[in-house]
Protein backbone atom coordinates (compact mmCIF):
# COMPACT_ATOMS: atom_id res chain seq x y z
CA UNK A 1 0.00 0.00 0.00
CA UNK A 2 2.84 2.35 0.80
CA UNK A 3 4.09 2.89 -2.70
CA UNK A 4 4.23 6.54 -3.58
CA UNK A 5 3.00 8.09 -6.80
CA UNK A 6 6.56 8.36 -8.10
CA UNK A 7 7.07 7.30 -11.71
CA UNK A 8 10.48 5.89 -12.41
CA UNK A 9 12.39 7.70 -15.13
CA UNK A 10 15.44 9.86 -15.63
CA UNK A 11 14.80 13.41 -16.75
CA UNK A 12 15.94 16.92 -15.84
CA UNK A 13 12.75 17.25 -13.82
CA UNK A 14 13.55 14.11 -11.83
CA UNK A 15 16.95 15.54 -10.97
CA UNK A 16 15.74 19.00 -9.87
CA UNK A 17 15.73 19.54 -6.11
CA UNK A 18 12.31 19.08 -4.45
CA UNK A 19 12.32 22.54 -2.88
CA UNK A 20 12.72 24.23 -6.28
CA UNK A 21 9.91 22.16 -7.83
CA UNK A 22 7.53 22.98 -4.98
CA UNK A 23 8.44 26.65 -5.19
CA UNK A 24 7.81 26.79 -8.94
CA UNK A 25 4.50 24.94 -8.49
CA UNK A 26 3.26 27.43 -5.87
CA UNK A 27 4.33 30.34 -8.10
CA UNK A 28 2.65 28.79 -11.15
CA UNK A 29 -0.68 28.24 -9.34
CA UNK A 30 -0.66 31.76 -7.92
CA UNK A 31 0.01 33.26 -11.36
CA UNK A 32 -2.90 31.31 -12.85
CA UNK A 33 -5.27 32.87 -10.31
CA UNK A 34 -3.79 36.39 -10.38
CA UNK A 35 -3.65 36.80 -14.17
CA UNK A 36 -6.99 35.20 -14.89
CA UNK A 37 -7.78 34.70 -18.56
CA UNK A 38 -7.66 32.40 -21.55
CA UNK A 39 -4.19 33.58 -22.64
CA UNK A 40 -2.52 32.80 -19.30
CA UNK A 41 -4.39 29.53 -19.06
CA UNK A 42 -3.34 28.47 -22.57
CA UNK A 43 0.29 29.36 -21.81
CA UNK A 44 0.04 27.43 -18.56
CA UNK A 45 -1.47 24.47 -20.35
CA UNK A 46 1.37 24.44 -22.90
CA UNK A 47 3.96 24.70 -20.09
CA UNK A 48 2.38 21.79 -18.21
CA UNK A 49 2.15 19.70 -21.40
CA UNK A 50 5.85 20.36 -22.07
CA UNK A 51 6.76 19.32 -18.51
CA UNK A 52 4.62 16.19 -18.84
CA UNK A 53 6.41 15.24 -22.06
CA UNK A 54 9.80 16.09 -20.56
CA UNK A 55 9.27 13.98 -17.45
CA UNK A 56 8.30 10.95 -19.50
CA UNK A 57 4.72 10.61 -18.25
CA UNK A 58 2.42 8.59 -20.49
CA UNK A 59 -1.18 9.29 -21.38
CA UNK A 60 -2.37 6.59 -18.99
CA UNK A 61 -0.71 8.41 -16.07
CA UNK A 62 -2.54 11.59 -17.04
CA UNK A 63 -5.87 9.73 -17.24
CA UNK A 64 -5.21 8.01 -13.90
CA UNK A 65 -4.64 11.37 -12.17
CA UNK A 66 -7.67 13.09 -13.61
CA UNK A 67 -10.12 10.19 -13.25
CA UNK A 68 -10.91 10.64 -9.51
CA UNK A 69 -11.80 14.28 -10.19
CA UNK A 70 -13.98 13.63 -13.24
CA UNK A 71 -17.38 13.53 -11.48
CA UNK A 72 -16.89 16.67 -9.44
CA UNK A 73 -15.48 18.50 -12.49
CA UNK A 74 -18.48 17.37 -14.53
CA UNK A 75 -20.83 18.68 -11.82
CA UNK A 76 -19.02 22.03 -11.79
CA UNK A 77 -19.15 22.16 -15.59
CA UNK A 78 -22.93 21.58 -15.61
CA UNK A 79 -23.57 24.17 -12.87
CA UNK A 80 -21.38 26.76 -14.60
CA UNK A 81 -22.87 26.27 -18.07
CA UNK A 82 -26.33 26.61 -16.50
CA UNK A 83 -25.38 29.73 -14.50
CA UNK A 84 -23.12 31.52 -17.01
CA UNK A 85 -22.30 29.84 -20.31
CA UNK A 86 -20.38 26.93 -21.74
CA UNK A 87 -17.29 29.02 -22.47
CA UNK A 88 -16.90 30.07 -18.84
CA UNK A 89 -17.66 26.54 -17.64
CA UNK A 90 -14.92 25.07 -19.80
CA UNK A 91 -12.54 27.78 -18.55
CA UNK A 92 -13.07 26.80 -14.90
CA UNK A 93 -12.82 23.07 -15.58
CA UNK A 94 -9.79 23.46 -17.83
CA UNK A 95 -8.05 25.49 -15.13
CA UNK A 96 -8.64 22.71 -12.61
CA UNK A 97 -7.19 20.18 -15.05
CA UNK A 98 -4.07 22.33 -15.58
CA UNK A 99 -3.60 22.85 -11.81
CA UNK A 100 -4.00 19.17 -11.00
CA UNK A 101 -1.65 18.10 -13.80
CA UNK A 102 0.96 20.67 -12.77
CA UNK A 103 0.91 19.20 -9.27
CA UNK A 104 1.10 15.71 -10.75
CA UNK A 105 4.33 16.60 -12.53
CA UNK A 106 5.91 17.45 -9.17
CA UNK A 107 4.50 14.39 -7.41
CA UNK A 108 5.46 11.97 -10.18
CA UNK A 109 9.04 13.20 -10.48
CA UNK A 110 9.85 13.35 -6.75
CA UNK A 111 10.19 10.38 -4.42
CA UNK A 112 8.45 10.67 -1.06
CA UNK A 113 11.79 10.08 0.65
CA UNK A 114 13.33 12.99 -1.30
CA UNK A 115 10.36 15.16 -0.36
CA UNK A 116 10.66 14.25 3.35
CA UNK A 117 14.42 14.85 3.20
CA UNK A 118 13.71 18.18 1.56
CA UNK A 119 11.31 19.16 4.34
CA UNK A 120 13.79 18.16 7.05
CA UNK A 121 16.63 19.96 5.25
CA UNK A 122 14.42 23.05 4.99
CA UNK A 123 13.80 22.86 8.75
CA UNK A 124 17.45 23.71 9.38
CA UNK A 125 16.62 27.26 8.40
CA UNK A 126 13.59 27.35 10.70
CA UNK A 127 13.77 29.43 13.90
CA UNK A 128 15.01 27.62 16.99
CA UNK A 129 11.58 27.31 18.64
CA UNK A 130 10.52 24.84 15.93
CA UNK A 131 10.89 21.31 17.40
CA UNK A 132 12.89 19.87 14.47
CA UNK A 133 13.75 16.54 16.06
CA UNK A 134 10.16 15.93 17.04
CA UNK A 135 8.92 16.71 13.53
CA UNK A 136 11.44 14.24 12.10
CA UNK A 137 10.39 11.66 14.70
CA UNK A 138 6.70 12.20 13.92
CA UNK A 139 7.14 11.79 10.17
CA UNK A 140 9.18 8.60 10.44
CA UNK A 141 6.95 7.11 13.16
CA UNK A 142 3.85 7.77 11.06
CA UNK A 143 5.33 6.00 8.03
CA UNK A 144 6.07 3.03 10.31
CA UNK A 145 2.62 3.12 11.96
CA UNK A 146 0.60 2.88 8.74
CA UNK A 147 1.50 -0.81 8.06
CA UNK A 148 1.06 -1.50 11.80
CA UNK A 149 -2.45 -0.03 11.86
CA UNK A 150 -3.38 -1.97 8.72
CA UNK A 151 -2.17 -5.25 10.19
CA UNK A 152 -3.98 -4.63 13.51
CA UNK A 153 -7.09 -3.77 11.50
CA UNK A 154 -6.75 -7.05 9.61
CA UNK A 155 -6.49 -9.02 12.88
CA UNK A 156 -9.46 -7.24 14.43
CA UNK A 157 -11.59 -7.84 11.34
CA UNK A 158 -10.79 -11.55 11.39
CA UNK A 159 -11.73 -11.74 15.06
CA UNK A 160 -14.98 -9.81 14.61
CA UNK A 161 -15.91 -11.82 11.53
CA UNK A 162 -15.92 -14.92 13.76
CA UNK A 163 -18.53 -13.08 15.87
CA UNK A 164 -20.47 -11.88 12.84
CA UNK A 165 -19.52 -8.26 13.62
CA UNK A 166 -17.21 -7.51 10.70
CA UNK A 167 -19.73 -5.08 9.12
CA UNK A 168 -20.04 -3.13 12.37
CA UNK A 169 -17.71 -0.11 12.26
CA UNK A 170 -17.86 0.50 16.03
CA UNK A 171 -16.90 -3.12 16.75
CA UNK A 172 -13.96 -2.73 14.36
CA UNK A 173 -12.76 0.71 15.43
CA UNK A 174 -12.80 0.39 19.23
CA UNK A 175 -10.35 -2.56 19.40
CA UNK A 176 -8.27 -0.97 16.64
CA UNK A 177 -7.94 2.34 18.51
CA UNK A 178 -7.37 0.80 21.95
CA UNK A 179 -4.81 -1.74 20.75
CA UNK A 180 -2.82 0.79 18.74
CA UNK A 181 -2.96 3.33 21.62
CA UNK A 182 -1.41 0.69 23.90
CA UNK A 183 1.29 0.00 21.31
CA UNK A 184 1.90 3.74 20.99
CA UNK A 185 2.37 4.01 24.76
CA UNK A 186 4.89 1.17 24.65
CA UNK A 187 6.73 2.84 21.78
CA UNK A 188 6.81 6.10 23.72
CA UNK A 189 8.27 4.33 26.76
CA UNK A 190 10.84 2.56 24.59
CA UNK A 191 11.93 5.89 23.05
CA UNK A 192 12.06 7.45 26.50
CA UNK A 193 14.12 4.55 27.86
CA UNK A 194 16.67 5.19 25.12
CA UNK A 195 16.95 8.84 26.19
CA UNK A 196 15.84 10.25 22.85
CA UNK A 197 14.27 13.32 24.45
Amino acid at each position, binding site marked *: MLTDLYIFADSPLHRTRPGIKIGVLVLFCTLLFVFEGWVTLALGGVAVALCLALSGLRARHVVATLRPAVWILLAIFLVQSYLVDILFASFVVFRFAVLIL*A*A*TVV*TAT*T*RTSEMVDGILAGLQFAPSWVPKNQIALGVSLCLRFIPLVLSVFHDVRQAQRARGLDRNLTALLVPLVVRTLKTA*DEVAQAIHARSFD
Partner: protein
Amino acid sequence: MAGLQVESRTVLETRDVVFIALFAAIVASLAAFPPITLPLAGVPITAQSLGVMLAGGVIGAVRGGLALVLFLVLVATGLPLLPGGRGGFGVFLGPTGGFLIGWVFAAFAIGYMTERLWHRLNYVLAFTICVLGGVVLLYAIGVPWVAFVAKIPLSTALTGSLSFVPGDIVKALIAAGVIMTVKRSYPIIQPKAEADSAGRSGRPE
Protein backbone atom coordinates in the same frame (compact mmCIF):
# COMPACT_ATOMS: atom_id res chain seq x y z
CA MET B 1 5.19 7.62 33.06
CA ALA B 2 7.21 8.84 30.14
CA GLY B 3 8.08 12.47 30.41
CA LEU B 4 7.05 12.89 34.03
CA GLN B 5 10.00 15.19 34.73
CA VAL B 6 10.88 16.13 31.20
CA GLU B 7 12.06 19.72 31.04
CA SER B 8 9.12 21.99 30.45
CA ARG B 9 10.70 23.92 27.58
CA THR B 10 9.63 21.35 24.98
CA VAL B 11 6.10 21.97 23.81
CA LEU B 12 5.37 18.32 23.09
CA GLU B 13 6.59 15.28 24.96
CA THR B 14 7.70 12.17 23.10
CA ARG B 15 4.44 10.46 24.06
CA ASP B 16 2.50 13.27 22.37
CA VAL B 17 4.57 12.93 19.18
CA VAL B 18 3.90 9.17 19.16
CA PHE B 19 0.15 9.71 19.50
CA ILE B 20 0.19 12.35 16.76
CA ALA B 21 2.00 9.94 14.43
CA LEU B 22 -0.41 7.15 15.38
CA PHE B 23 -3.54 9.12 14.54
CA ALA B 24 -2.06 10.42 11.30
CA ALA B 25 -1.49 6.73 10.46
CA ILE B 26 -5.04 5.79 11.53
CA VAL B 27 -6.56 8.51 9.33
CA ALA B 28 -4.37 7.26 6.46
CA SER B 29 -5.41 3.65 7.01
CA LEU B 30 -9.10 4.54 7.07
CA ALA B 31 -8.84 5.41 3.37
CA ALA B 32 -8.36 1.69 2.78
CA PHE B 33 -11.69 0.86 4.50
CA PRO B 34 -14.27 -0.39 2.01
CA PRO B 35 -16.57 2.55 1.23
CA ILE B 36 -20.13 2.19 2.46
CA THR B 37 -22.93 3.37 0.19
CA LEU B 38 -25.85 4.88 2.03
CA PRO B 39 -29.21 3.63 0.82
CA LEU B 40 -31.04 6.97 1.14
CA ALA B 41 -28.41 9.34 -0.27
CA GLY B 42 -26.68 7.07 -2.76
CA VAL B 43 -23.39 8.84 -2.11
CA PRO B 44 -20.48 6.53 -1.23
CA ILE B 45 -18.99 7.58 2.09
CA THR B 46 -15.46 6.79 3.14
CA ALA B 47 -14.38 6.28 6.71
CA GLN B 48 -11.62 8.87 6.50
CA SER B 49 -13.48 11.81 8.01
CA LEU B 50 -14.43 9.44 10.82
CA GLY B 51 -10.71 9.44 11.63
CA VAL B 52 -10.82 13.24 11.90
CA MET B 53 -13.55 13.06 14.56
CA LEU B 54 -11.67 10.29 16.40
CA ALA B 55 -8.39 12.22 16.36
CA GLY B 56 -10.00 15.16 18.16
CA GLY B 57 -12.15 13.07 20.47
CA VAL B 58 -9.49 10.56 21.54
CA ILE B 59 -6.20 12.49 21.77
CA GLY B 60 -7.50 16.05 22.19
CA ALA B 61 -7.27 19.43 20.51
CA VAL B 62 -3.57 20.17 19.98
CA ARG B 63 -2.46 16.60 19.32
CA GLY B 64 -5.51 15.86 17.15
CA GLY B 65 -5.00 18.97 15.05
CA LEU B 66 -1.29 18.25 14.63
CA ALA B 67 -2.05 14.64 13.65
CA LEU B 68 -4.11 15.98 10.74
CA VAL B 69 -1.37 18.47 9.82
CA LEU B 70 1.11 15.57 9.69
CA PHE B 71 -1.32 13.51 7.63
CA LEU B 72 -1.81 16.33 5.11
CA VAL B 73 1.97 16.87 4.86
CA LEU B 74 2.39 13.20 3.96
CA VAL B 75 -0.42 13.49 1.39
CA ALA B 76 1.31 16.53 -0.11
CA THR B 77 4.60 14.65 -0.37
CA GLY B 78 2.91 12.31 -2.81
CA LEU B 79 1.75 9.33 -0.77
CA PRO B 80 -1.59 8.00 -2.07
CA LEU B 81 -3.33 8.20 1.32
CA LEU B 82 -6.71 9.58 0.25
CA PRO B 83 -9.58 7.32 -0.90
CA GLY B 84 -9.05 6.00 -4.40
CA GLY B 85 -5.27 6.27 -4.02
CA ARG B 86 -5.22 10.04 -4.49
CA GLY B 87 -2.36 12.11 -3.14
CA GLY B 88 0.18 14.75 -4.05
CA PHE B 89 -0.20 18.50 -4.27
CA GLY B 90 -3.03 18.25 -6.77
CA VAL B 91 -5.66 17.36 -4.17
CA PHE B 92 -5.22 20.71 -2.42
CA LEU B 93 -5.68 22.57 -5.69
CA GLY B 94 -8.80 20.60 -6.60
CA PRO B 95 -12.33 21.72 -5.68
CA THR B 96 -12.40 19.77 -2.41
CA GLY B 97 -9.11 21.15 -1.07
CA GLY B 98 -10.94 23.26 1.50
CA PHE B 99 -12.40 20.19 3.16
CA LEU B 100 -8.90 18.73 3.54
CA ILE B 101 -7.57 21.91 5.15
CA GLY B 102 -10.76 22.07 7.22
CA TRP B 103 -9.97 18.67 8.75
CA VAL B 104 -7.21 20.27 10.84
CA PHE B 105 -9.60 22.82 12.33
CA ALA B 106 -12.38 20.24 12.74
CA ALA B 107 -10.09 17.89 14.70
CA PHE B 108 -8.88 20.78 16.85
CA ALA B 109 -12.40 22.03 17.57
CA ILE B 110 -13.70 18.55 18.41
CA GLY B 111 -10.71 17.99 20.69
CA TYR B 112 -11.15 21.35 22.40
CA MET B 113 -14.84 20.78 23.13
CA THR B 114 -14.15 17.20 24.28
CA GLU B 115 -11.45 18.40 26.71
CA ARG B 116 -13.73 21.09 28.09
CA LEU B 117 -16.65 18.71 28.69
CA TRP B 118 -14.51 15.67 29.58
CA HIS B 119 -16.06 14.86 32.99
CA ARG B 120 -19.61 15.38 31.82
CA LEU B 121 -19.13 13.69 28.45
CA ASN B 122 -21.89 11.30 27.42
CA TYR B 123 -22.96 9.81 24.10
CA VAL B 124 -25.34 12.65 23.16
CA LEU B 125 -22.76 15.28 24.04
CA ALA B 126 -20.01 13.48 22.10
CA PHE B 127 -22.33 13.19 19.09
CA THR B 128 -23.18 16.90 19.26
CA ILE B 129 -19.48 17.79 19.45
CA CYS B 130 -18.70 15.61 16.41
CA VAL B 131 -21.51 17.23 14.41
CA LEU B 132 -20.46 20.77 15.40
CA GLY B 133 -16.80 20.22 14.55
CA GLY B 134 -16.94 17.56 11.85
CA VAL B 135 -19.96 18.85 9.92
CA VAL B 136 -20.83 22.48 10.76
CA LEU B 137 -17.28 23.84 11.04
CA LEU B 138 -15.91 21.61 8.28
CA TYR B 139 -18.57 22.75 5.80
CA ALA B 140 -18.12 26.36 6.89
CA ILE B 141 -14.54 26.07 5.57
CA GLY B 142 -15.02 23.68 2.66
CA VAL B 143 -18.12 25.15 1.01
CA PRO B 144 -16.84 28.75 0.56
CA TRP B 145 -13.61 27.23 -0.84
CA VAL B 146 -15.52 25.29 -3.51
CA ALA B 147 -17.56 28.38 -4.30
CA PHE B 148 -14.40 30.46 -4.70
CA VAL B 149 -12.23 28.14 -6.80
CA ALA B 150 -15.10 26.81 -8.94
CA LYS B 151 -16.65 30.28 -9.26
CA ILE B 152 -20.13 29.13 -8.33
CA PRO B 153 -22.49 30.99 -5.96
CA LEU B 154 -22.25 30.04 -2.29
CA SER B 155 -25.82 28.75 -2.21
CA THR B 156 -25.21 26.39 -5.14
CA ALA B 157 -22.05 25.05 -3.53
CA LEU B 158 -23.95 24.52 -0.28
CA THR B 159 -26.82 22.65 -1.96
CA GLY B 160 -24.31 20.47 -3.80
CA SER B 161 -22.52 19.60 -0.56
CA LEU B 162 -25.71 18.82 1.36
CA SER B 163 -25.91 15.32 -0.12
CA PHE B 164 -22.84 14.39 1.94
CA VAL B 165 -24.40 15.52 5.24
CA PRO B 166 -26.37 12.28 5.97
CA GLY B 167 -23.16 10.27 5.60
CA ASP B 168 -21.34 12.64 7.93
CA ILE B 169 -24.14 12.37 10.52
CA VAL B 170 -23.79 8.56 10.42
CA LYS B 171 -20.04 8.96 10.91
CA ALA B 172 -20.64 11.28 13.88
CA LEU B 173 -22.93 8.63 15.42
CA ILE B 174 -20.19 5.97 15.05
CA ALA B 175 -17.40 8.30 16.19
CA ALA B 176 -19.33 9.29 19.33
CA GLY B 177 -19.72 5.61 20.27
CA VAL B 178 -16.01 4.94 19.74
CA ILE B 179 -14.97 8.08 21.65
CA MET B 180 -17.14 7.11 24.64
CA THR B 181 -15.88 3.49 24.71
CA VAL B 182 -12.24 4.57 24.45
CA LYS B 183 -12.84 7.16 27.20
CA ARG B 184 -13.98 4.35 29.52
CA SER B 185 -11.33 1.79 28.56
CA TYR B 186 -8.15 3.72 27.68
CA PRO B 187 -8.48 7.47 28.29
CA ILE B 188 -5.72 9.65 26.82
CA ILE B 189 -7.11 13.15 27.22
CA GLN B 190 -6.26 14.87 30.48
CA PRO B 191 -8.71 17.68 31.08
CA LYS B 192 -7.52 21.11 32.09
CA ALA B 193 -9.06 20.80 35.57
CA GLU B 194 -6.48 19.19 37.88
CA ALA B 195 -8.85 16.91 39.76
CA ASP B 196 -12.38 15.64 39.32
CA SER B 197 -15.09 15.68 41.96
CA ALA B 198 -13.61 12.64 43.74
CA GLY B 199 -10.27 14.44 44.06
CA ARG B 200 -8.41 12.03 41.77
CA SER B 201 -6.05 13.44 39.19
CA GLY B 202 -7.07 13.21 35.58
CA ARG B 203 -4.24 10.83 34.75
CA PRO B 204 -5.16 7.29 33.75
CA GLU B 205 -4.06 4.31 35.91
